[in-house]
């Protein structure tokens, strides 16, 4: 019964998936950047075209299978060529493809235009975490999976964002063109956030560019999109889009915290050195 109701809910949500649900479990998110919305429209346009083609092909097939059954006394016709029909089903698909290629070409050009970005972040993939460096702000930190091994093993209840939560998300201001420079320290990774319409391979020895401009405050989640070893499933991406003010606050806070962390580290290092020296003295 529960299963049936689930199916009913799934089916009914299909009809609204296209518009009503921002984060549908059925469909690509329309997302929160101009590019992601363009990509979504392209995806839906192509999907509808495919549906129409499938509907035509399958109706002819079903019609033939019902009408021309031998058991209903159907006699096979003898034709096996028809030039004009053959030309038609060569040319018409070609035209449909051209019609799809034009918007795809235009959107692709926009994706490649990383000019006039207002913030540049270097994204480095590691086995198995991400490092974010705000090149002009001098901030850099790692972003690790926050779900615990206990949750993975089932010894602890899972959070709603199980495997899609990190300790330090990437924080960016809204309505700002953010350029990302993506590379890797070891194997090929892939930085993918569906709601931003961005997927960019992180390849050692290469720096790939991409960009996004988030128009809505919120938290957007993604995952590594290229098999990168044992913990490929465990290096999610969380992007927090905040207002410019909040971002400025975050920047200054992060600097202080970073400084405090630094002093803390220095203090710890000093203590360690003392200990070692003490030990050394003792052993002497």
């Amino acid at each position: 019964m529960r299963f049936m109701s689930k199916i009913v809910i799934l089916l009914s949500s299909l009809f609204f998936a296209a518009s009503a649900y921002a984060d549908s479990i059925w469909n690509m998110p329309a997302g929160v950047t101009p590019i992601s919305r363009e990509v979504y429209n392209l995806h839906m346009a192509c999907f509808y075209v495919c549906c129409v083609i499938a509907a035509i092909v399958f109706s002819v097939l079903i019609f033939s299978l019902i009408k021309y059954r031998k058991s209903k006394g159907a006699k096979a016709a003898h034709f096996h060529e028809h030039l004009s029909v053959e030309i038609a089903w060569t040319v018409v698909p070609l035209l449909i493809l051209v019609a799809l290629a034009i918007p795809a070409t235009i959107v692709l050009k926009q994706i490649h235009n990383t000019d006039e970005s207002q913030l540049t972040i270097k994204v480095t993939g590691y086995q198995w975490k991400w490092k974010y460096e705000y090149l002009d702000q001098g901030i850099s930190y790692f972003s690790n999976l926050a779900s615990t091994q206990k949750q993975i093993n089932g010894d602890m209840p899972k959070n709603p964002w199980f495997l899609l939560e990190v300790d330090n998300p990437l924080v960016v201001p809204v309505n700002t063109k953010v350029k990302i420079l993506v590379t890797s320290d070891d194997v090929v990774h892939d930085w993918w956030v569906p709601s931003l319409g961005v997927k960019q391979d992180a390849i050692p020895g290469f720096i790939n560019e991409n960009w996004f401009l988030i128009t809505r405050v919120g938290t957007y989640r993604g995952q590594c999109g290229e098999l990168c070893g044992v913990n490929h499933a465990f290096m999610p991406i969380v992007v927090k889009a905040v207002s410019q003010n909040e971002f400025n606050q975050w920047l200054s806070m992060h600097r202080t915290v970073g400084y405090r962390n630094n002093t803390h580290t220095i203090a710890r290092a000093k203590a360690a050195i003392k200990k070692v020296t003490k030990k050394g003295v003792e052993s002497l």
Partner: protein
Amino acid sequence: MSEAIHHAHHSGAHDDHHHGPEKGFKRWLFTTNHKDIGTLYLVFSLIMLFVAGFMALLIRIELFEPGKVLLSPETFNQMTTMHGLIMVFGVIMPALAGFANWLIPMMIGAPDMALPRLNNWSFWLLPFAFSMLLSTLFMSGPSPDFGWTFYAPLSTTYGPQSTDFFIFSIHMMGASSILASLNIVVTIFNMRAPGMHFMKMPLFVWAWLSTGFLLLAVMPVLAGCVTMMLMDRHFHTSFFNAAGGGDPVLFQHVFWFFGHPEVYILILPGFGIISEVIPAFSRKKLFGYAAMVYATAGIAIVGFVVWMHHMFTTGAPYFAQLYFMYATMLVAVPTGIKVFNWLATIFKGSITFETPMLFALGFLVMFTIGGLSGVMLSLVPADYQYRGSYFVVAHFHYVLVTGSLFTIFAGVYYWLPKWTGRMYSETLGQFHFWLSVIGMNLTFFPMHFLGLAGMPRRIPDYAIQFTDFNQIATIGAFIFAIGQLFFLYVVIQACRHKGKRVVEDKVWEGAHGLEWTLPTPVPYHTFETAPVVH
């Protein structure tokens, strides 16, 4: 040249003619008979289908719920890698080579393949190659765990020690495929019966001719690829190592230059089988034979120049992406022609629904779905979202499970009665078909949604919102697996000479072609005197 081969073969086969096949294992080990070798390929493929299928079930069990269910992430990666490698190289390719061996000589009126001893060797390389590959599962370190695409540097600098076994088994599989395809191409060129012009050849033969050239062109590239890996791993070269001035993207170019034609290698012979089955059960000549031939060759040629559509997110320049997008979209045209031609063959036919036809129709419907999602994937901006997600997994299982596996099933049900003289049980065949169709769709259709909603492929564990569809997929996988047990039973029954006897030369009312002029079951040696084709 063709004359020489003819005569040489005739005198060589003379002795066998009197006392038939040898008894016991020697028959299979030393055989040069194309039918025996075809059987070996098909049996090998069937065993591997269950091995790789078992791995797929393990994968699906692990993905039944979020969190760890059965496999550690390490084992999971090994299973996905092995499942892919075995299904591609151990199931689909050998099965299609088995059909080629059985059918091409009988379809073109030749007594055997052109190079029978080479034929024996090309098969017998395979069991050794796969023993070596599977032996890595029992070694102390991890077996290959980098996916069937084995991207560097995950497979080179970061690869487990067993990678070397993987490299050499790929070399052996490659050698096997090159020799087999060489043999097929030479046979088709030189061994055709008088009057069997190129444009009279059955489409299955045409499909294999195109496939043969594809294999000859790209298997050496794969061999080069794994050799460079071997050099990087042990001889201090840096083909793919950025730290040494190498280029990890080069790996992907080389791999996909092999890998994309490879998908047509897996599909074209299947197209050939369907082009035999659909006309037979529609009792109507194949629509647009010439167009089908040109479309096959067209797909093969265009298949060479689209490889970079697997690499759109690697940071390819704008114009490279545009070219590969347009070229990829172009593949849809000849593929569309094929689908429309099959449809036109069915249209106004006189249709019956025996198991081979059911599988052919299942192919037609689901391959169309897979082909259409392929068109979606070709659009670069949308591909950014699809790439590396379950959408891709759904897409290529739609084209491979139905395009290759279903066509192989259709072919087995279609020709097995001819080969063995026993008719399979129609009831069991239909059970097999319906369980396969239902299982296949339950497994792979929800994967479209998973991918679009953002689930990456090759992950052993996933976020909670992906649970429902994954559970449906796992249930589907088990339904599919149960269906294959029916298939196993049907095949074993036919091979044990159980079941209804078939005596007519033309097993199927609507069948056409030279193979149906031979007695049923097909004798050990056929067309020792070439037939004349009018």
